């Protein structure tokens, strides 16, 4: 048993690119669901648009990476409009149904055989298409900082960029939600007829929140595509959205830092449990008759599920949430 190694891997995962990707996706959901009350179950669709814009525009069409990022962001705006125009006038449930279906439509489209030459089918697109980004890498070797140890200079660079990006989005969210704009969207979350009776164009604000959160979600996909230099359609299944929701609720919805802390804790627990079990099985402390090494991947999700159930029972407001607000729900 090498506990030192388990901790290094787990703590590195806490700040690693997976944490960043899901933090970004959850930050987008926080604007939509946390503050405005929009049930967007299609965050994976927004992320897929970002990721595939990068991969297709650079690898398939041979255009600039910066152009591809721009197209990814515009694509998210258009996707938000397409989802929002028919559904935002209806009850909240309809948005949930439409978004979860639309995200699946995108995933099935990019993995379809007939569009193989553009999107690469179920294998996705892999290549060194993000060279332009890594040419700015100021690090000539992997950085290590205490227990945080990256395995390459490239990983160090993208991680730093990722956290700067998260910092900017957290700052923007913080500025927005404490402004009168934030007041209006929070009033819509509570009772949109009340906002309407006070002269607020509810539909317009919902659209703004949906698009803004979607653009942040597409940044998650863009970031993932640049980090991995490959895109796979099945990464953008509804599991992606549900993880992002889990993270949001874990950290505390409608809290500026909720998604970031939620993502850090979620991935720490997941990696820590996975690594611990791997070592326990490898060293024979847990015998093969109870758990085989190929079962660890599933079991760690069972344990994470258990941890989440305990959280919902004992701290339903999430880590940062305010219990007084939940108490007001039933009145």
């Amino acid at each position, binding site marked *: 048993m090498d506990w030192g190694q388990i901790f290094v891997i787990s703590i590195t995962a806490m700040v690693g690119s997976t944490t960043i990707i899901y933090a970004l996706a959850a930050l987008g959901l926080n604007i939509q669901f946390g503050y405005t009350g929009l049930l967007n179950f299609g965050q994976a669709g927004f992320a897929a648009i970002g990721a595939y814009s990068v991969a297709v525009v650079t690898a398939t069409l041979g255009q600039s990476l910066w152009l591809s990022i721009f197209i990814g962001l515009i694509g998210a705006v258009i996707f938000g409009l397409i989802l929002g125009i028919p559904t935002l006038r209806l009850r909240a449930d309809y948005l949930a149904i439409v978004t979860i279906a639309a995200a699946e439509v995108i995933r099935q489209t990019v993995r379809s055989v007939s569009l193989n030459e553009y999107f690469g089918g179920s294998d996705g697109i892999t290549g060194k298409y993000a060279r332009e980004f890594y040419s700015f890498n100021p690090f000539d070797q992997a950085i290590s900082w205490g227990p945080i140890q990256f395995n390459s200079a490239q990983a160090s660079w993208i991680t730093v960029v990722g956290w700067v990006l998260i910092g900017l989005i957290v700052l*923007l969210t913080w*500025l*927005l939600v404490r*402004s*009168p*704009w*934030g*007041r*209006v969207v*929070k*009033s819509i979350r*509570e*009772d949109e*007829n*009340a*906002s*309407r*009776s*006070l*002269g*607020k*164009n*509810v539909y317009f604000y919902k659209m*703004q929140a949906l698009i*803004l959160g979607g653009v942040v979600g597409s940044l998650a996909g863009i970031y993932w595509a640049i980090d991995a230099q490959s895109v796979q359609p099945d990464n953008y299944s509804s599991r992606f959205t549900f993880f992002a929701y889990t993270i949001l609720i874990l950290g505390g919805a409608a809290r500026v830092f909720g998604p970031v802390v939620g993502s850090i804790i979620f991935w720490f627990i997941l990696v820590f449990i996975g690594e611990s079990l791997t070592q326990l099985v490898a060293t024979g402390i847990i015998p093969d008759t109870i758990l085989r090494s190929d079962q660890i991947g599933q079991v760690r999700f069972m344990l994470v599920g258990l941890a989440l159930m305990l959280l919902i029972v004992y701290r339903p407001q999430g880590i940062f949430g305010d219990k*007084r*607000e939940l108490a*007001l*729900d039933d*009145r």
Partner: protein
Amino acid sequence: MTAKTATSASDSVSARAVAALSGVKSEPGITKPDEILVAENINRHFGGLVAVDVDRLSVQRASITALIGPNGAGKTTFFNVLAGFDTPDAGTWRYENHELRNKAAYKIAQLGMVRTFQLTKVLAKMTVLENMRLGAQRQLGERILAAPFPFAWSGQEEQVTERALTLLRRFNLYEKKDDFAGTMSGGQRKLLEMARALMTDPTMIMLDEPMAGVNPALTQSLLGHIKELREEGLTVLFIEHDMDAVRDISDWVVVMAQGRIIAEGPPASVMRDKAVIDAYLGAHHDEELTKSGESLTQNKKAKST
């Protein structure tokens, strides 16, 4: 201002409102001297049920008009239609010079015709002060592009806060300003909703049962607040079941029954109107129930044999 001069001012405003309506005949749909709101041929049905079928209704400017009627008369549905929260199957209505048909509810509120709800809609998870600030119109900080830059809107926010605090003092809610609105009692919520509606700086306010579920002491203060609105030149249209309250504050009463306006006029005369009494108590309320009584006993006999 002393209490005495306040009452006399209130009396004179009330007298003026009554005087303006004195020449108006008490018949449904009658034209008034200075109409702020006119609705014509409004029809709203839910399947086979005709909820609202109003030929004409007008509201006199700077007066307090009560809309009364038995349960299920269509008052709230009519209210929803007027405020843009429901779409009628037919009809047109005008507020000042604005045609309101096909206008969204938020636009109607922006024009200065603001409503409250029968079941109060305070925003429970926001503080009382935030509830109030939300009411202010044309806030630069509500635009998404200006919102991230506090220096652009903080000046306006201060003015809004100042106005909100003044209103909260007037409605005796100042001490509650930092509490979540959800912690307030039903009566306080009614007060907050009215104060919040005033934050929009309306010219006409529509109150849906402002006194429902409010204790008698608070009812008196609510009535006082409504009278104050008229003193400020606002037009008030309100739905109410409490007849004492209606008699006390309204200048004009409109009675609805089964979706139609059956009578209107000054409170004292309307409440003596035969059609109104019939609508509330039934047309045969003073007749003996001999016939139906007989049939009941016959039924019993038939069963026992």
